[in-house]
């Protein structure tokens, strides 16, 4: 048995060694970027790095994070390209990220780079909370468009609002953490208590509220701007509202997984991920990118979104995540049915 295994191993090794010297490096990259964008990203990267082949492992933010954490003792990924910064902070606190300062990282907006030197992760682009408002259904129900988060607690909207459950959705969590930052700990929970009275239900995913609003299933969906713009482009009677108090956001970021055998290739990937051309590439979907001066307006994106982005404290969000979710669950998760 043992001999068989050694034999197989040596066989595998000889196959690897026999491969041409200029063999391309294969890089396992975990990502939560939309499936339709991945091919484009890889092609662009290969224009300057033809010898590195990316093997994508893609899933939603929650699942990829769970997967990385589950593989803590036996990491399968070489690098991460496009995962929520709050998730990367969790991984960083587990010591799973290899700090590296990519060439040209100093050109990025400071907000988008990890505070440590060298940084454990570098940002790519931001996705920003917004309210999707279905004008047709709202008119039928006799609603006026809200202009602020506080407006949403008006009894007029009772049963007309859907938001994602922060326990399962990253978007839901960024909403909750932004309210706690904007209104203060106490004020934030008071606000959510009031909002809870108007919520029809909490969805599992962050894009669903906006899609439901687009389909007229509910007049108001708390979601993110990118999703709203897409649905609007598809012809849904949507208005994307940026609440006046400011909006929460999270960024997509990249990092090297500690202990990777392909450190050099992973560094090249990170070098590329901060370049101007990479940021131009992110801009096709995201209005806000890490490289200043690159972003061109995205069609159907609401005005004033950039200015409304709050000064997000990611450290607060990551370190209090478990406690916030526990509190949220005890307040709203089962209680809504016990009424």
């Amino acid at each position, binding site marked *: 048995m043992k001999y068989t295994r050694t034999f197989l191993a040596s066989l595998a090794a000889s196959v690897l060694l026999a491969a041409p010297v200029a063999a391309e490096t294969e890089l396992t990259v975990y990502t939560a970027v939309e499936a339709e964008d991945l091919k484009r990203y890889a092609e662009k990267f290969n224009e300057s790095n033809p010898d590195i082949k990316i093997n994508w492992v*893609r899933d939603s933010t929650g699942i990829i994070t769970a997967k990385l954490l589950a593989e803590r003792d036996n990491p399968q990924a070489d690098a991460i390209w496009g995962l929520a910064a709050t998730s990367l902070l969790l991984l960083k606190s587990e010591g799973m990220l290899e700090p590296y300062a990519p060439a040209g990282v100093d050109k990025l907006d400071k907000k988008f780079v990890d505070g440590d030197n060298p940084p454990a992760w570098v940002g790519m682009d931001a996705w920003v909370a917004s309210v999707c408002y279905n004008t047709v259904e709202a008119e039928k129900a006799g609603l006026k468009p809200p202009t602020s988060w506080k407006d949403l607690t008006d009894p007029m909207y009772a049963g007309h609002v859907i938001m994602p459950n922060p326990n399962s959705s990253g978007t839901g969590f960024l909403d909750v953490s932004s309210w706690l930052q904007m209104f203060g700990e106490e004020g934030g929970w008071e606000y959510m208590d009031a909002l809870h009275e108007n919520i*029809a*239900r909490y969805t599992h995913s962050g894009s669903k509220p906006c899609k439901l609003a687009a389909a007229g299933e509910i007049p108001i969906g708390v979601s993110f701007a990118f999703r709203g713009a897409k649905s609007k482009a598809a012809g849904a009677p949507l208005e994307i509202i940026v609440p006046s108090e400011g909006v929460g956001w999270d960024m997509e970021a990249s990092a090297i997984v500690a202990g990777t055998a392909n450190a050099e290739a992973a560094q090249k990937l990170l070098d590329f991920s901060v370049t101007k051309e990479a940021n131009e590439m992110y801009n096709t979907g995201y209005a806000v990118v890490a490289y200043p001066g690159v972003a061109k307006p995205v069609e159907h994106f609401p005005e004033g979104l950039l200015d409304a982005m709050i000064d997000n404290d990611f450290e607060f969000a990551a370190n209090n995540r478990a406690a916030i979710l526990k509190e949220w669950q005890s307040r709203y998760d089962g209680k809504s049915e*016990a009424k």
Partner: protein
Amino acid sequence: MSVLDTTPDTMPAGPEIKPKLSRDDIIMRGGMIVIALYLLITLAFPLWAMLSKSFSTYQFDLSQYEFQISDDAGVFDGAILTGTELNARTKVYDTSDLAGSSDSRLGVTKFFPDFSFRSPVHYKIRNSVEGGRFLVGSKLYNTLDWLELDSNNFRRVQLRPVKSTGISNFVSYFSTPALFNSIKNSLLIAAISTVITVSLAFWFAYALNRSCMRFKGVFRLIAMMPILVPSLLPGIALVYLFGNQGMLKGLLFGASIYGPIGIVIGSVFFTFPHAFLIISTALAISDSRLYEAATSLRSTPWRTFWTVTVPGARYGLISATFVVFNLVITDFGLPKVIGGQFNVLAVDIYKQVIGQQNFEMGAVVSVVLVIPAILAFAIDRIVQSKQVALLSARSVPYAPSPNTRTDRIFLVYSSLVALFIVGLLAVCQFAALVKFWPYDLSLSLNNYQFDKMDGGGWGSYFNSIELALLTAVIGTSVVFFGAYLVEKTNGFRVGRSLFQMFAMLPMAIPGMVLGLAYIFFFNSPSNPLNFIYGTMAILVICTVTHFYTVSHLTAVTALKQMDREFEAVASSLKQPTMKLFARVTVPVCLPAILDISIYLFVNAMTTVSAVVFLYSPKTTLASIAVLNMDDAGDIAPAAAMGMMIFYTNAAARILHLFASKGILKRTQAWRTR
């Protein structure tokens, strides 16, 4: 001495004569051990891993940390305080605060009542033992070196918990009302759905077996349709019917379909065929003489019904009740799609694991969910074992006589049930073809462009077919061979009954639980089978194990019909058992083998719960795609994919029908003699 003690009229006990094991016996026992090992590895070990995970806790161990505090000038006097001492002095954290999850953090500034982030006081902190961990911000420190921090940075220090074992996960589960409310919710909807489904299915089966209404064949076909779709598909249909933009929204009188109402209606839909099949079998056999006796005793039809019909079908009714109850309480897809804020156990597992990465709590909920499932299963088995034959050799099979009035009532009733089933499926198909409900009702195939959606695109559909075919072929071989060994081996009683027990176990284990258990067992780096994690192989193994019991019972029933003399004859003719197995047993049991394979195929196409934790980006499945597309809000494409599963399964069924007709003609001719 001993000679005197021996009573003269009995012979001394000679050595026990053991028949020598023949080569055949060795092969048979070896085979049985192999399959028992398979069940051990794919069922018992993962469940054990899950159970131990539920007792794996995370605890803040304050004795692992040491602190120093300076005076206002930033000078340390060298006094070292441990976390335990500080907590004893300030009493800020009690035991329940120190229990956490893998993701918990604990701030330290509360240990110092005078703490202010503006003060000039400096602090030092270190781990006093290897394995201690703390963060400053999100930077991890796990060495034994002292770290000096100013007040402003000291407030960013967060302690991390260490692994230990204990029951604190269960304590925290039962002290979180949001979580244990789900137990009540799950039991409630399972009970309501069971009562409704069993009543509906009973009268439907009664109409088909005990009346002379027309179109029985059509009704029988329609009743089986829900088996061909994932359990979450009726949920999607209900959104289109009764959602806020629903076609029949008015029928709910303002109540919301998102919640218990939706779960119950959907559960009735997907459990109906199971209840119908069981009750129909029970009603099909009945002794006509009992009814004649009742008539001659001038019993009213009502009384006859309660004293003859219902008692005759009682085992079927009980069995149907527990099967439906189990299906509903362990189902995950439907409450996820239409449950709204109504939390149930199966969805809680998903939320804990996928949403919060809290694997330990997921394991706790799993353990809680297994209890009612095993209870229902055990009661059912006990009742079944008491069942005695209703039909004796002298029985006269009951034949219904036409009765225009009741036949018409039954026809109307059955049509309504059929309308419910066909209606929900038709709504799904309609939803899949509409361009943009409810604003643009023109028809298009846009929703079939799965590659533009979440869930893996068309690739996931073909993966599903691959999984279904592999499951059917491998599963049928393993199950049938295993059943043969158990049924036809001589002796080795302990091994055989142990095997029987293992084979019954999967029925009682909810799919979600099995899937989660597989993560714990197969994803552990120390497991030599770790390499199958994330491959098609683990999906096949999981699905075969999940649906093992029913397949096993089907095989055993078929094998019981074959006389054991075959084996005796074969051995007297010096033919190896394996030859007999291949040349006689398999051909004779071909109908059962085909039934098992189609059962496994259909279930592999529709299963969600067992594989939702196990699929990888390369092995996405159609049924999971339905779930993920609905999750992302792409409800119409989800309906479209769901209907693709339906058509595929329907086609497989038709193919199975023709195949079995053709093969049966060749292999089963002896039956018609």
